[in-house]
């Protein structure tokens, strides 16, 4: 009986025929003289037989169609609920992290370039066609300016003539204005 503990551990392998021959023979001879282990082996054999008869639950196609539809609607529903989290994850993905880190550097670089551009005379490196276009743009701008100034001077002249005429007609009115 003292050996029962060691033999019992091997009963399952014995019942399934997985025990090496030598060990199986030793166990068999123990079983001959031990009713307790024999009863245990009987339970195990019945347990194995019963588990072989176990029929898993099965469902039909209608069940599985509904299952799939329900599952995907739940997946979409939950994905929609978690959008802020998803957006956060998107921003923090490894691809975006270095890009976000570089962004302030790019801003600083841009500011520096804009400040130093006139000093460096960047136009020197422009292609000729760009230079010509720039000259034409500048000329057009100068002509426009000249026209504006002329118009302004003409308007000033008109006002002076008007004031002079008014003064001749009624000097007190002009004094009143100051």
């Amino acid at each position, binding site marked *: 009986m003292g050996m029962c503990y060691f033999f019992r551990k091997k009963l*399952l392998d014995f019942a399934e025929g997985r025990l090496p021959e030598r060990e199986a023979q030793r166990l068999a001879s123990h079983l001959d003289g031990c009713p307790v282990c024999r009863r245990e082996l009987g339970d195990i054999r019945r347990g194995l037989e019963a588990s072989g008869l176990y029929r898993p639950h099965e469902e039909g196609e209608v069940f599985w169609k509904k299952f799939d539809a329900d599952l995907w609607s739940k997946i979409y529903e939950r994905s929609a609920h978690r959008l802020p989290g998803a957006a956060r994850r998107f921003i923090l993905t490894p691809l975006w992290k270095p890009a976000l880190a570089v962004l302030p550097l790019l801003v600083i670089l841009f500011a520096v370039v804009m400040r130093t551009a006139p000093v460096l005379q960047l136009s020197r490196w422009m292609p000729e066609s760009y230079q010509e276009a720039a000259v034409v743009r500048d000329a057009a701008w100068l002509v426009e300016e000249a026209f504006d100034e002329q118009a302004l001077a003409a308007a000033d002249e008109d006002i002076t003539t008007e004031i002079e005429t008014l003064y001749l007609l009624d000097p007190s009115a002009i004094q009143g204005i100051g």
Partner: protein
Amino acid sequence: MMSLIDVERSRECVRRFQGGEKAAFDELVQMYKRQAYGFVCSLIGNAEDAADILQEGFLRAYEGLARFRGEAGFKTWFYRILINLSRDTLRRRVRSRRIFSYSLDEEDDDRAVREVADATLRPDRLAQEEEWQNILRQAVAGLPDRQREAFSLHRLQGLKIEEVARVLGCGPATVKVHIFRAVRHIGRIIGPYMREC
């Protein structure tokens, strides 16, 4: 048991999903849903909550698959999710209504035999297949958590001892002990009816 083709196919689906192809998840669902449904039913003892547990399991898999590293394989990982969800459901059930009136303690097998018989069995109807399946399912459901999980994974799902150990997160020797006890317990409960049949 999982064939190498299944393992490779599921690995490929996981890779595609992680690469942004969300439709690859549906392939995983189609590959495992029936098998996993049977597994969940065997853990919780009936089909009542099985569909909900399975859906929740797939949902969690969908949400966690992006972070899944794949060392253990999808099935191992997914079955672990299902085991945890089933345990939660059983705990809730036990709290709300004590459906399994007999003890889960393995020392009380004899009492379990008597109480299962009193509660559900009519010897004259034992020959009926459905009745027989119910007894068997109830015997499996009456096992302590670890024994039921190991038994179901190994005997009903056909996983190897090493695979069961990976799912349950314990050693193969421990798995063997759980299975031994589970088989013995079922044999003791089912025994009287098998002799009668």
